[in-house]
């Protein structure tokens, strides 16, 4: 295109095709929302809010890029805003703080387990799920996005609004913590 020629913005994706494409990722988004909120009702609400925001902003989505990562970004932003609004806990998990928490073995300041938590944990009966559940949120999300959802480091950095170095650092610490958690869960389970 010659320099200086006026260029119109591309039309937003067709509503029906965008809806169909976006809903292909519903289970992944719901799983993420459930990990973050720990309550099925809150997870459904968060996912619905995410889809509405994505639909309204679909003109800003670049066709051919990673739709799932874009939806994750909206979901995580929505979640962070909600937490900030509710002032229930820290919004940003500072790497230093998270690292100290991980060394101490606490779960990032999460409240005591609710009945929903216990139900969720009962369903996650194997050692891997138990260990994942015990990771601080900032570590758990990075590990999950990389090793389960197979997102690139760059996409994870965008989704979580952190530098790429932080992604790599949290990934390394998260995996080590998870490894230790799996071993501990195995030791705790009578054979």
């Amino acid at each position, binding site marked *: 295109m010659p320099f200086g020629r006026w260029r119109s913005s591309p039309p937003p994706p067709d509503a029906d095709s965008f809806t169909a494409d976006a809903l292909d990722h519903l289970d992944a988004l719901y799983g993420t929302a459930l990990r973050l909120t720990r309550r099925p009702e809150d997870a459904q609400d968060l996912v619905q809010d995410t889809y509405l925001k994505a639909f309204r902003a679909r003109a800003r989505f670049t066709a051919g890029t990673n739709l799932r990562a874009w939806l994750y970004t909206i979901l995580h932003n929505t979640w962070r805003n909600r937490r900030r609004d509710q002032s229930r806990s820290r919004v940003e998990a500072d790497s230093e703080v998270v690292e100290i928490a991980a060394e101490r073995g606490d779960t990032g300041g999460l409240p005591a387990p609710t009945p929903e938590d216990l139900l969720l944990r009962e369903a996650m009966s194997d050692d891997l799920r138990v260990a994942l559940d015990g990771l601080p949120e900032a570590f758990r999300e990075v590990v999950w996005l990389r090793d389960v959802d197979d997102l690139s480091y760059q996409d994870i950095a965008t989704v979580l609004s952190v530098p790429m170095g932080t992604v790599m*650092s949290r990934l*390394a610490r998260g995996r080590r913590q998870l490894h230790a958690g799996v071993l501990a869960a195995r030791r705790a389970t009578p054979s």
Partner: protein
Amino acid sequence: MRINTECDRFDELLALEAEHGDGAVVDPALHRHLAGCPACEAAVAAQRAVRKRLVTHRRALQITAPPGVRTRIAAKLAGEAHAEAGASMATGWGLRLSPLAAAAALMLVITVGVLPMVTGQSSVVLAAQLALDHVKCFLIDGDVHATPISAADAEATMRKQHGWSVPVSATGGVDDGHLVAVRECLYSEGMAAHLLYRVGETPVSLFVMPDTDHAVASVSILASDTVSWHQNGRTHMLVGPAGSRATLDSMARHLQLEAR
């Protein structure tokens, strides 16, 4: 805990290293370090083991959204699209829509434009929800070669699931129709009985719900035609593929006569 500053220098690369098989070189300096640092070597091995398990169990770790969530969200987005199309037409933005989107928006506006605005919109949203359920349920239970089920079996299912004593038509009121399944579907206001018919090879759904205040309407949405009516204290909606309006109208007439 590792406090070696050289270890810290390579800390970020350990995650990357753990994703490569033995022998692959992420960074030659890192490899030299690992050869002489058992702590980092063990950290990489731990990461590699964890990643391998997670990758292996990816599918098992995924959680499925509860039934009804997809339908509710799709209906919300259809409502958004409807409102968006109306706003676009009103402000002249419709000129910027693609021809296909403009045609779809025009079809929506013409189809529901004769209805009162408030009830009309809610009818469109209901039609959108049920149109999606129609497609979904036929994918699950509506095989074109499915064995027809009897009206008695369908009535027994509805009695068991809803406590409703509803006379069911085995043919949907048309000569080449037959009932292939009965399901229960979640919509925004509760549960609906869903009767799946094949008319020839055309899939047609009859949804029966507790009576609502939705306007009786013929709506075309999401590549589907719908016809609704109120009778005997319940709301009924027929849904078929686009272009099946004549079949739906005929079925609606016969079903209303049969239910009197």
